[in-house]
Structures are given as structure tokens and as C-alpha cells.
């Protein structure tokens, strides 16, 4: 039994310690906003924050997250509030199918923590999530909007 802190709440999770954090979040904690896209750290759909750092949760073992603060898309903003990245996403109508967007938003939120006013180049380097619908043009607009919000 492992105790995992997600979005400030503690979850008792009864799985093997090498279970990827992604599946502990989705299937054991029941928070399905974090998505599975590849399982091999290629797509970024599973991006969460672990102690404030963006992490591809499909490729981190649950055991590595014990004792740390895990934040998922459901906990990015405090209950009832909207994070500035989410707001920019809504204002710019970024999502198409939306499946990649939890990970995209989490990656962008982490970027803005380290670089509050990112240049296009900063964005290119930091945001490597795949979006098969191809929302990148709106993602870029919305990042700049969130940065100046």
C-alpha cells in the first residue's frame, strides 16, 4: 500500500511500486484527466507536475512519486478557479479533440513557472508534446496570452 499525494489529497494506492505513475493516477486514484498516448515518454499526453516539475507520468514509477506533491490537470487551479493557462486556452479556443490538451496545458504551466515571458524559441524548446489535431498555432498564441495575463 502506497500513499500518494495528488492535488493536495492523499490516496492509499494498492499496486506494485513499479506501476507507472500515469496508471496509478488514472486507475487507482481515478483521475482520468491525465491521458495515455504512447506510454514511452514520446507524446506528453500524460504530463503532470511532480514537486512543480513537469514529468511524463507514463515513464515515472509510482514509487518515485511517493512523498512528493503530484499535480494533475484536475488540480492545476484551486477548486472553482481557472488557471491563467486554462483561461488563455478557453479564450483562444485551443483544443480540437482535446485529448492532448491536459498534457499540453500542464507542460505550458510548468514552462511559465520557470520562464514567465517565454520567447517563441523558449516555447519551441520546452513544449514538445504531440498534438495530432495540430493545434500548435493556437497553442503558441495562447501561451503568449497567458504569459501577459
Amino acid at each position: 500500500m502506497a500513499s500518494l499525494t495528488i492535488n493536495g489529497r492523499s490516496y492509499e494506492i494498492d499496486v506494485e511500486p513499479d506501476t507507472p505513475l500515469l496508471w496509478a493516477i488514472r486507475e487507482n486514484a481515478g483521475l482520468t484527466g491525465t491521458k495515455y498516448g504512447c506510454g514511452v515518454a514520446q507524446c506528453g499526453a500524460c504530463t503532470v507536475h511532480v514537486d512543480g516539475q513537469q514529468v511524463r507520468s507514463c515513464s515515472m514509477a509510482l514509487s518515485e512519486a511517493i512523498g512528493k506533491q503530484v499535480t494533475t490537470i484536475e488540480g492545476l487551479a484551486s477548486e472553482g478557479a481557472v488557471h491563467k493557462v486554462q483561461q488563455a486556452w478557453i479564450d483562444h479556443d485551443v483544443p480540437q479533440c482535446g485529448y492532448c490538451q491536459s498534457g499540453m496545458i500542464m507542460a505550458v504551466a510548468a514552462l511559465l513557472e520557470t520562464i514567465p515571458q517565454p520567447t517563441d524559441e523558449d516555447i519551441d524548446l520546452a513544449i514538445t508534446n504531440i498534438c495530432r489535431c495540430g493545434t500548435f498555432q493556437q497553442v503558441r498564441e495562447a501561451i503568449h496570452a497567458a504569459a501577459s495575463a
Partner: protein
Amino acid sequence: MGHAPQLNRRSFVLGTAAIGSGLALGIPFGGPTAVHAADGTLEVNAWVVVRPDETVVVRIARSEMGQGTLTGLAQLVAEELECDWSKVTTEYPTPGQSVARKRVWGDFSTGGSRGVRTSHEYVRKGGAAARLMLIQAAANEWAAPVSECATSKGVITHVPSGRTVTYGKVAEAAAKLQPPADVKLKDPKDWTIAGKPLKRLDTVEKTNGKMIYGADIKLPGMLNAAIKDCPVFGGTLKSFDDSKILGMKGVKKVVRVGESAVAVVADTWWHAKSALETMPVVWDDGKNANVSSESIGKWLQEGLDAAQPAFVGNKAGDVKAAFASAAKTVEAVYAYPYQNHATMEPMNATVLYTAEKCEVWTGTQNGEAVFAAAVEASGLPSDKCEVYKIMPGGGFGRRGMTDYVRQAVAIAKQMPGTPIKLMWSREEDMLHGRYHPVTQSKLIGAFDADNNLIGLHMRISGQSILASVRPEAMQNGMDTVTFQGLNASGEAAIGYTVPNLLIDHSMRNPHVPPGFWRGVNVNQNAIYLESFMDELAHSVGQDPLEFRRKLMTKHPKHLAVLNAVAERIGWTTPAPQGVFRGICQHMGFGSYVAAATEISVTGGNKIKIHRIVAATDPGYAVNPWQIDRQIAGSFVYGLSALFYGECTVKGGRIEQENFDTYPSMTMKEMPKVESILMPSGGFWGGVGEPTICVAAPAVLNAYFAATGKRIRSVPLKNHDIIFA
């Protein structure tokens, strides 16, 4: 080689429903018997429910998968209904309800960029009829003539007296009225909701993790299944040793799925997948075990020979005679590979099967096809089956197929009463796609002594999608869809007049199953034709734009989009130092499209795309904002395909299993797309797919301008060409 056509029961199941009623699809709205919506409110008609709190529920039969159709269709209904847009919400009727109500909502199929363009008329009529019924109900209450009543934003006004009533107040009375026999639709130039750049209706939940996709479905007592289908298409499952995994944590059952697959059912998907990976499985690879990309390529190459039998798609004059009299001929051979849709969310379906009922929850582009698949796979009558459409994480054509649904039903049938969520791993998704078909093309152009193009033969050799997916739609063995963008007329017509023309198809169907892949056949046809047009122009020392224009005088709409991108990119003014331009045009899915690019190339192989200008004439633009997004997104799909997209075949199976070997573009590779939306009216074209096809040729032609090298096969990674 060859691909066995599957029996298609869908047309049977749905056909019976429609025929049995004697109702034609043209009849857009429900009968006079009032029907209750799920929440108990009486619906005004099949398309519109107005709740007492003034919420307007618009029914949407087509599937939203990110392309914005849901919002666009709601706009069209709301426009005619003249309701308050801020009160609009949407609801999917289920396929089971549709069959029970004699297909009152028409076709559910959402592919071929048809979501709006093939249903706009009857959904608008649904909105208009509902409005007339609401007015009638108000007029009855006031004992006033209908002609004295006006509507705006969900409020009916009796003009002479100034009395008003809201839709929600008269909706119940309206629901009991006889629907009007016919309605008049608004002129699109009077639109105030449709045609406007409105925001999507489904955005917020996609930003906070609340949107439920198929993969997120949870049902009480549900178990999870992971599956492996024989990696060699056409192979079968010989044996598996479940003794190795049955004791593993969470594993409940191991089941055979049809002839070729095995699934592990467990408490969680992670347990199911991990157990499946360790289980010894023996396949019988069958007769395709030696097929490779090389053997397929060789077979297709033989089909390029003009002597090989071929279906004729477009013909004018006499190419043979033109070639005989030509002063000069130019010839080139092109090739396009297999590609996977790689939707962001892998295929999945959740099924609850009991002896009395089979229920399916899944993301699909075609609820009715899933319904028919559930009926067939469950063996239950259609009134005992139901399908609930869930938001799909991308479709791109892949989710028009029902293979994964059939598998899920087959598993659930072996565990009656337990809901089963079957989810494919990314690897399974890559290995069991319905791939962009593989083709090659040989093109020969003939010039007279004055460098006029007098003849063009375009031979396509390769795979037919219809032969595999919809054999009943073939015409005397011919797959007309192969000629998308090359037809003499219609929704995918060629934009050039060449006096002696022959476009034909030597059909060769390898065993790798093809499917409709966003853009379908215009993708490769545009590369073939538009690259070759460039080759022809250069071969006679003419400007590629001017060369095209001379052949396009009888194709004004094709020409208009081409001219628009030429003007925006500044074709006639010199490009910046080190920057080179490419241009092209094509038509597909009822829309005219063109693109122009500016690129620079370093080291001969590193491409930087500085600008992309894309023009679209879709006839009518229902939501310019969303169309803009579809266009920008289509370049991501099209350029990913150009630079990276290839599924190679070895030992009868696909070699690429994940995004590490089948990459997709990211932010840093994304050029800015400037879209020009130029709806000219009078026709309805699609917007989800058309511009994909002009992405690649525009870049390839610019690459030639920059380097003098003509690239004739996709993807560019095979030529060592990469994004700078």
C-alpha cells in the same frame, strides 16, 4: 495477395429501419406525435428541445472529434430557430433511438468532411420548422395571426400589441402541433449565428480534465482488457499459455477473440497489459508472412506499365496520338507509403453484454456503424442493442471503422454481465491501423513544338480503399474514390484542361488493410499531379504559376484560390535572400484549395518553412474561426505525413510501433499558417480535410526551387531531409 471484402451488415440493419417505415431521409422532422426528451421535456421536433428554463437543446447526429462539426451544426439549427445562442447546448441522439424512430436524424456517418456539407439542409429545416411551431403556439395563445408575430433570440413578439413570450413557455404547446409541410430557409447572407466566428461549445471541459473520452469510461464492476491481434494481417492465433499469467495480480481471465486475437481481462488496464506482455503467444502468420515494403513496391511498379489493365477515371482526346506527335515528352514516377492515423487516443470501446442487451460506449465517427457492428457481433436483435457515443481523442477516418468494437463485444460476450473496457496500447494501434493506402504513379506529359502541353497520362498503381472497406460502393470493380481530385467534374475535380488526357488506375491490393485517412486519396494525387505540373513547367522554362494558369481558364474556382495564394505570398515579387517559393492547388471534398510556401534550405537537407499561405473556397463558411483551426491543423497532419509518415512492412506486418519510429510534428516544426477563407457561395464544401493535400506539394515544389532536386517519394526522412 488480396484482401477479402468484409460483409457489411450495416446497410442491412439500417436499411430495414428506413425502408420499413417508408420514410425517406429528405423528410427532416418528426411526426405530429409529441416525443419526450430524456429529461421529460417534450421535444419541439427531433432536432430541437426547448426546456422550461429556456435552454435550447440541439440534437446532433454527426460526431464531434475535434473538427468543430458539433458547434457548426448547432449554429445552423440555431440560426433558423432564431434562438439565443448563449442558451444553446447539444445532445447526441443514440443510434438505437434513431433506428426506433425510423432514422429521423438521417446519417450519423462523419467522414469525408461531410459533417456539415451533407446535412446542412435538413438540420436547418429542423430549426426552421421548430421556429414556425413555436410561433404558431404563441399565436394560438394570443388568438392572433402568425403573420403578426416575429422572433428574435428566443422571444416571440406579437408586433401590433407588443406582447412577448419566450420559447420555453410555449415549447410544450408547440410540441403538440402538426409540423409544417415545408419551410423556407434563410439566405446565408442574412445569417447572424451561422457564418460567424463563434467559439466552440465544448472547450471548457477540454481544459480542466473533465471531458470524458472513451478511455475514461468507468462503469460499476467494470474490468479492463488489453488485446494482441496477430501482427501479420491475415494470420491467426495458434496458441497461448495463460498458466503463466493467471496467477498474476488483478488478472481475471484470458480470452480468445475471434480467429486471430487474444485478450487479458484484469482489474486495471495496466495489469491487463503487463500480463499480456509476459504471456507466451504463438501465431500462425499465414500466407502473408513474406510480404515486405519491397515486394509491395515491386508489384505496384509493374502496374505503372501502360500495358497493364487499368480502370479509366478521366479521359479526353487521345493521349497515344498526342504522344506520337509530341515534340517532347517528360516522364516521372512518384510513390506514397502506408501511414497510420495515429489518433492521440488509441482505439477503445466499453461493452456491457447480457443475454438481454448489448450496450457499447465508444468514441466513433459513425454511431450507426458501431450499432450495426454491435448487433452483428452480439447476435442480439437490433432493439436489444444500444450505442452511446463518447468524445473521441481524434478520428481522422480511423474511427469510422468498427474492428475494435467487434473485439470488445466478443470479449464481453465471454463475460456476460461484466462491463469490459477494451483499450488498445499505442503499439496495438500502430500495428492494426487501417492505413493510408499505398500507391505509385507514373506521369507522362507531352508538349508540341511551341511548348504547349498537349497530352498527359497519369497512371496510378496501387491500393483501393473501397475494395477493402466498402466493396458494395465499387462500380464494376472500379474504385472511383481513387481518382479524388482528378475527376472531370464533381466534388473532387481536376483544375486543368489538357486536350489529350488519360488518368487510369491499375488496382493492386496488398494484404495490409487500407482505410480513409484524413484527406484520403487527394493527399497522394495532389503530390503526384502538382509536383509533376511543376516539373512540366520547369522543363519548358516557364513560371510554375503562369504554366498552370494557362491550363486553368475553364476552371475559375480552382484558379481563384491559386491566384489568392500567389498574391498573398507575393509570387511576382522577389523572395527574400535565400528564400524559395512553391505553389500548388487541388480540389477535394467539395472545396477548392491552394497553398504557397516560402522555405529556406541549409546544407541541402534542412528545411525551414517560413511561411505557408493557404486558401480555401468551401462555398459557405459556417464558422470561420473553426475553419481557420482546421486549416492550420491540416498542415500539421499533412506536413507530419510529408516529413515523417511511413509504415513499412516486413514479414507481413508493420514495423513501426510507437511515436519514436512514427514521429509527428511538434511546436518547433510548426510554421505559421496564414489562411485565406474565400467562400464564393452556391455550393457546400468540406473543411476538415481539403487543405491537407496542398501542404506537401507546396513544400516539395519550393524544395525544388531551392535545390534543383525533385523529391518523388514520401516521407522526406527517407531522403535525409529534415526540419531545420
